[in-house]
């Protein structure tokens, strides 16, 4: 590991805390910086540094080590411990890397979408959101999760509302998100309260051990499980609780949409995995029932209804937002199988979907940047007007459908195999139907872009106007990555997911 030997020892040992503290503190400094350019450079520094650190930690953890960091030197379970293992290390790296790509993208797109006075605070809120997401993934303390959940949520509401200088509807969307997100956070903390009542501790590993001793605990922990599932379900846009998502994705600034779509719901899904499998345990009857029947059912409903709604949207961003709800359904279906293969498939899809949706939303942002396009009917002729951007969109779209040699194919293949392994043939049918629906909603956009001619304005055909390079680079990086995962790196991604599901199911040893 040459890369690891380059990293200072200190950074690896303290990495878990550095990842959270650095964006938090530099975000606070950025909030009082007057210059937007300076704010951008600070954000770039934070994200580059974070990505490198997260990558180093990922490598260390990939070697089979678990990183434990004691905040303030206090031993768990009394002190707050930050724990990085095979389950959260890939998510941490994902968050940092997506933050880096969106920051690059933001150099141009934020200038176009956010009014000048608000740009430095925009970056400050962005960094706080990043710190919040990283914090809720890194920490091993249940209440600390809630704190960071709120840090990330509140800064996300602000970021969504910043879209108001482009479209006033962003305010309504942000308010919607605020109300529903707060309900979700409240439910989560009520659940934590019940858990604390049952076990008398807040350290996640400790709660898990005590609950296993109690063999699932009394009705109090059942109620806790219900509240936590609903609270996190709201955050990760589980099917009937997804209503905040389309508005928030459609009206936020493009950079924020990409960041949200590829990290926020993923972090919430990670928490759900962490809570259902390691804090609670699937050997408890209530957890088993909820996962097998309710979560699986909701996942399938999301796959079908989400994809179906995506077909009928008139706004391309809403199409992709509904598609995201459907993709969360795939992940939940994998979780509901309760097998190593199912969890692996689900986790693979978490990573792949982040890459795919990132590329797609980057492209949508670029269409808006050049032509102010968001409606599906305006896609006519985009293949000629912005060939490179449309190329990236096409790759992402094919990957979303699950065409062979793309990332989406890998996840759907894994999920199908897992369903067959579990003996759920009907689930294969659901996956197929949902994929066919995806062909419709993506195909509709691609057909318009490639087979219709560009619109005429004042008798002249609109000229070709490609997006700037700094927007194309992160977009194409993700688009190529989604193909790369499909062809070369599928083993690596599956291995990451395998490690994650090992962490999740290790509690089930006799």
């Amino acid at each position, binding site marked *: 590991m040459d890369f690891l030997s380059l990293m200072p020892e200190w950074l690896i040992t*303290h990495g878990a805390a550095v990842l959270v503290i650095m964006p938090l503190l530099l975000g*606070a400094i950025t909030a*009082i910086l007057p210059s937007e350019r300076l704010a951008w450079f600070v954000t770039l520094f934070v994200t580059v540094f974070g990505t490198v650190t997260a990558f180093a930690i990922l490598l260390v953890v990939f070697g089979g080590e678990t990183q434990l960091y004691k905040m303030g030197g206090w031993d768990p379970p009394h002190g707050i411990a930050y724990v990085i293992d095979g389950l959260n290390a890939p998510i941490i790296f994902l968050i940092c890397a997506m933050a880096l790509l969106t920051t690059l993208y933001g150099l141009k797109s934020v200038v176009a979408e956010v009014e000048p006075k608000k740009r430095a605070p925009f970056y400050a809120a962005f960094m706080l959101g990043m710190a919040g997401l990283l914090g809720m993934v890194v920490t091993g303390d249940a209440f600390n999760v809630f704190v960071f959940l709120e840090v990330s949520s509140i800064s996300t509401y602000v970021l969504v509302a910043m879209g108001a200088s482009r479209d006033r509807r962003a305010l309504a969307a942000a308010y919607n998100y605020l109300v529903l997100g707060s309900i979700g956070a409240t439910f989560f903390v009520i659940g934590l309260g019940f858990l604390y009542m049952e076990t008398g501790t807040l350290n996640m590993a400790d709660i898990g051990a005590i609950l296993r001793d109690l063999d699932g605990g009394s009705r109090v922990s059942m109620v806790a499980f219900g509240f936590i599932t609903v609270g996190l379900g709201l955050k990760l846009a589980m099917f009937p609780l997804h209503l905040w998502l389309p508005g928030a994705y459609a009206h936020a600034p493009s950079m924020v949409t990409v960041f949200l779509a590829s990290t926020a719901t993923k972090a919430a899904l990670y928490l759900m995995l962490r809570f259902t499998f390691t804090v609670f345990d699937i050997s408890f009857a209530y957890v088993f029932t909820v996962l097998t029947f309710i979560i699986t059912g909701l996942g399938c409903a999301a796959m079908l209804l989400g994809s179906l709604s995506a077909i009928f949207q008139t706004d391309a961003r809403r199409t992709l937002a509904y598609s995201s709800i459907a993709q969360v359904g795939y992940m939940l279906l994998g979780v509901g199988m309760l097998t190593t293969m199912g969890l692996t498939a689900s986790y693979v899809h978490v990573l792949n979907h982040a890459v795919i949706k990132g590329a797609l939303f980057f492209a949508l942002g670029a269409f808006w940047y050049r032509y102010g396009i968001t409606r599906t009917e305006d896609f006519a002729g985009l293949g000629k007007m912005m060939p490179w951007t449309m190329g990236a969109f096409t790759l992402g779209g094919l990957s979303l459908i699950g065409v062979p040699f793309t990332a989406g194919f890998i996840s759907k293949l894994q999920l199908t195999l897992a369903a067959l392994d579990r003996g759920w043939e009907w689930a294969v049918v659901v996956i197929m139907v949902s994929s066919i629906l995806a062909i419709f909603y993506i195909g509709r956009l691609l057909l318009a872009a490639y087979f219709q001619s560009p619109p005429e304005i004042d008798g002249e055909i609109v000229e070709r106007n490609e997006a700037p390079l700094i927007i194309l680079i992160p977009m194409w990086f993700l688009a190529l990555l989604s193909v790369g995962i499909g062809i070369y790196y599928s083993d690596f991604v599956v291995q990451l997911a395998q490690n994650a599901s090992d962490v999740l199911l290790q509690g089930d040893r006799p």
Partner: protein
Amino acid sequence: MTPHVILRIISKFLIPLIALFAFYVQFHGDFGPGGGFQAGVILAASVILYALIFGLDAAKKAIPPSWVRIGMSLGVLLYGGTGVVTWMLGGEFLNYSVLIDGYPAKGQHYGIIAVELGVLLAVASVMLAIFYAFGSRQPDLSDEDW
């Protein structure tokens, strides 16, 4: 003759006491219930009382919104900065024991005071910022803004 003479006189008398009580709560946090959060709220309450009696403009002249904005960040930085100092001294983040070489108990004491001051600053500023934001809100949008 200014209106509300009694209110003005009484609150003029009370405001410094409230502020003083805030600092009492702050430093009493070492020995009993209290600490930065409560003290920050009380401190902000003294300014808010001033604004209610003498008007928002007078309050903004006394504590300008720009200070409030800086105060919010500075509070967070004071808290986090303490952690960074403990990092530099070789401990974990916010491990105050390393603050004073050879005297971990004293280090814990000073560390917690620094951190609580950060909390005081951040909470008081945020309370004021919220009050200013609601207080100076312009009425409904005019038609041109839509």
